[in-house]
């Protein structure tokens, strides 16, 4: 960025490497994603160990796990109904991953989902699942359905299909990026007395509130798109 200001909210390269003659970088996003993956793995192993020797009267950690599983089950059955069990794994995985990515701004990392490479990949995975379910459940009807009400509407239906991954990934990306930019400007450009206390409120809105809402919305929309093709 230009302008000579000290505000810093860009993605930075950490390690440079060359692959097939292309200059590539491991960025702050990669570092954040690695840390989050390790944290999630540790949590998963701890949860597995706890649930293997589960007790009738649950302890604190077991209680939290059971609460989370019940929330996941009610969230998936609310939309997918009978098919909920098949998709609960995937929904739970992306819910935890996106939630931790959105909250990583609180831990001093650059918010991982404020990188379009991450969110667009999540959108593409959703797109692939939706198309696979459509072809599996409707066969050729999945493609002839694009001509359904009137053949003239084919281009609009096609754009509507391809707009889904772009719109859900841009929604998540833009929400988190706006928080990163607001906080970067606040920390970088204001005098020292403005940085005491006030950023806490901004963090609560931009990271906690916005992050949790967008995680919920991403998972809900994924389920709604999948439910359309069942």
């Amino acid at each position: 960025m230009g302008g000579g200001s000290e505000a810093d909210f860009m993605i930075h390269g950490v390690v440079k490497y060359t692959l097939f003659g292309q200059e590539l970088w491991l960025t702050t996003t990669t570092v954040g994603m690695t840390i989050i993956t390790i944290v999630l793995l540790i949590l998963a192993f701890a949860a597995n160990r706890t649930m293997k020797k589960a007790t009738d009267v649950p302890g604190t950690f077991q209680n939290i796990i059971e609460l989370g599983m019940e929330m996941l089950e009610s969230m998936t059955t609310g939309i997918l109904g009978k098919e909920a069990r098949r998709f609960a794994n995937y929904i739970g995985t992306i819910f935890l991953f996106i939630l931790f990515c959105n909250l990583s701004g609180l831990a001093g990392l650059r918010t991982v989902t404020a990188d379009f490479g991450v969110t667009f990949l999540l959108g593409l995975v959703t797109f692939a699942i939706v198309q696979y379910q459509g072809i599996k459940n409707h066969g050729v009807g999945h493609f002839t359905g694009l001509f359904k009400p009137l053949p003239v509407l084919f281009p609009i239906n096609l754009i509507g299909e391809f707009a889904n991954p772009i719109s859900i990934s841009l929604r998540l990306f833009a929400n988190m990026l706006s928080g990163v930019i607001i906080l970067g400007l606040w920390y970088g450009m204001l005098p020292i007395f403005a940085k005491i206390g006030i950023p806490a409120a901004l963090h609560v809105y931009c990271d906690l509130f916005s992050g949790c809402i967008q995680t919920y919305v991403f998972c809900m929309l994924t389920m709604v798109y999948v439910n359309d093709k069942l």
Partner: protein
Amino acid sequence: MNISGQDFIYGCSAIGAGLAMIAGIGPGVGQGIAAGHGAAAVGRNPGAKSDITSTMLLGQAVAETTGLYGLVVAIILMFVKPFG
């Protein structure tokens, strides 16, 4: 004062970014209407408060998308500098 072609393009990009953020009006109005109807629904049926809140938040997040497209356009114009 001499303004080079490059500076002129940057200035026009900044004006374009400002104009793109006019897109923020629509979602603001829409979210306000959604929140108002949500409040009315809770007043009519306080028992369904959690259902109403989650539906309202989902609808608001979807309605927000058009404004966020404007934001993305503005950010690309300001920081990616596609015309510079």
